[in-house]
């Protein structure tokens, strides 16, 4: 068996996880299918397919070195928990970013890996990996917001507040985010986790685990990001805001009916949302923003 055949088989194992799996299952049959005879099987008997798989994961990890720049805590925790190679090997097994259109660029490939990572971590029984999942999701949100800010966008002119001719009922106002708004539910406080990482904490001790909602509010004018912790009710309300429906319609979706939506409740909700300084309010059917 010549070197070219050894290199061909090894290379295909690195590039084609399905081939590697078939080779692991029935080496002789697979090699016969390639026209490689008994000598090839004998030579390749010593090929450590498990280690080859990990090497393919290693190569993929190196090709994702830019994650160090954009997702330093995620990458750091992958290494801290010593699962980086297995994650990238599993990503390779799943096809990697092969289905991502290359013309979509590097961000699409990164998003593909992050989608996989979130899925992979959600499926793991180890509770400590929930920490990594929260950190990865936080860093991804910040990354997406940064990209959004960097992209050209038309800002809604907020400086010219217009008083409507008539007072509008709170329930008939349409709340619209002032800038970017993202909501995410975490099991830990991602900022606290990253502080611990920065302090060199080995993350072996437990982290407070409590379901919490965070709102990522980006003011495009000042280009600042604010993080707010929300209660479940406010988070549900904000998640339903789509910039098209009135406050009344949003509340009806969240509560399920409008039996509790009195004028007082609507005003109270309006005040709460205004207090976040994250929304402006447009009368239903109007074009200009309305600021009370």
């Amino acid at each position: 068996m010549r070197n070219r055949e050894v290199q061909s088989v090894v290379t295909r194992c690195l590039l084609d996880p399905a081939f590697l799996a078939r080779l692991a299952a029935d080496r002789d049959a697979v090699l016969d299918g390639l026209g490689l005879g008994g000598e090839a099987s004998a030579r390749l008997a010593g090929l450590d397919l498990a280690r080859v798989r990990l090497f393919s994961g290693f190569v993929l990890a190196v090709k994702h070195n830019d994650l160090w720049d954009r997702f330093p805590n995620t990458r750091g925790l992958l290494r801290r928990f010593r699962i980086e190679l297995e994650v990238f090997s599993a990503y390779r097994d799943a096809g990697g970013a092969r289905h991502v259109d290359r013309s979509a660029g590097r961000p699409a490939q990164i998003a593909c890996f992050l989608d996989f990572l979130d899925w992979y971590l959600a499926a793991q029984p180890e509770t400590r990996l929930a920490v990594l999942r929260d950190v990865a999701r936080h860093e991804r949100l910040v990354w997406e917001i940064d990209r959004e800010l960097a992209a050209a966008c038309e800002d809604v002119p907020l400086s010219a507040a217009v008083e409507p001719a008539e007072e509008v009922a709170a329930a008939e106002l349409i709340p619209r985010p002032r800038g970017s708004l993202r909501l995410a539910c975490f099991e830990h406080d991602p900022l606290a986790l990253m502080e611990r990482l920065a302090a060199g904490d080995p993350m072996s001790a437990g982290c407070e685990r409590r379901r919490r909602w965070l709102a990522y509010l980006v003011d495009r004018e000042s280009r600042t990001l604010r993080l707010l912790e929300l209660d479940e009710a406010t988070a549900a309300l904000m998640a339903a805001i789509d910039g098209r429906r009135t406050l009344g319609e949003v509340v009806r979706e969240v509560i399920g009916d409008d039996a509790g939506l009195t004028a007082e409740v609507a005003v109270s909700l309006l005040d709460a949302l205004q207090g976040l300084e994250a929304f402006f309010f447009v009368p239903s059917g109007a074009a200009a923003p309305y600021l009370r």
Partner: protein
Amino acid sequence: MPDVFSRPGPAVGIAYSSSTPAFLSRHPEAVDYVEVPFELLQHDPAAAEVGQVKPIVLHCASLSVAGSVPPSEETVAAIRRWVETTGTPWVGEHLSFISAEAVTGADEYAPGEPYNIGYTVAPPMNEETVETVLAAVARDGESLGVPLLLENPPLYFPVPGSTMGQIELVRELVNRLPSLGLLLDLTHFLITARNVGFDPLTEIGRYPLERVVEVHVSGVEEQEGAHWDNHASRAPEIVFELLGEVLPRAPARAVTLEYNWSSRFPSSVLLDELARARAVIAATGRGVA
């Protein structure tokens, strides 16, 4: 620019990362040169601007000298152009393969295309590889206009078809080609030692150190029962011990710290590592007069 590679002692440099220009502007005297990958220059020619500040050493992972698929003429021509543009004193290339012919059968993968890993892989260590490498050096290396140094790859798994060890393979190459220079990656050597199972401090003496022109230093990581290259962490102490063993016996002209996988590698740590390397050089008596 001064010729840092002709001094009595080896120059100390770093592998290029996106944070290198800023690092050099803040610490202009910290390094003597910058090693830049050919593949990066192809993707981002602006990286060559660092050559206005420091000498460049060109590093390569595209010639596939130990592979059955030779590089394209375009690739060799591009390497040659960058040799001229950068003024590199040599080109360091991996003693590896990066692509392979497709062994066709009923089950085809990427029909009509050679397999391209996009990363270097240690070859079978045998006579056929010796001949393949010597032919590649004669075909492509000698056309570059500067010496081609061969770098020892890390061994992550036993490669089928091997009939000799890596040190024996390298020895055979230098014996057959007296002009061949070497790039000794001490971390790769350590990784191979750990994964294969030999004592690196004992075996380093069997390496043809008299041919070593450049030395690489980087970090190592242990995961899943094996040791892996890691250019985002500091080299372990044993790598600097190996450096101390090598320098008295090798006419090395350059020591490169490869901490280029993360642009967030702390400058303070990089400065520490540079000082560490210079201290080892000084202790061996090979410092700059």
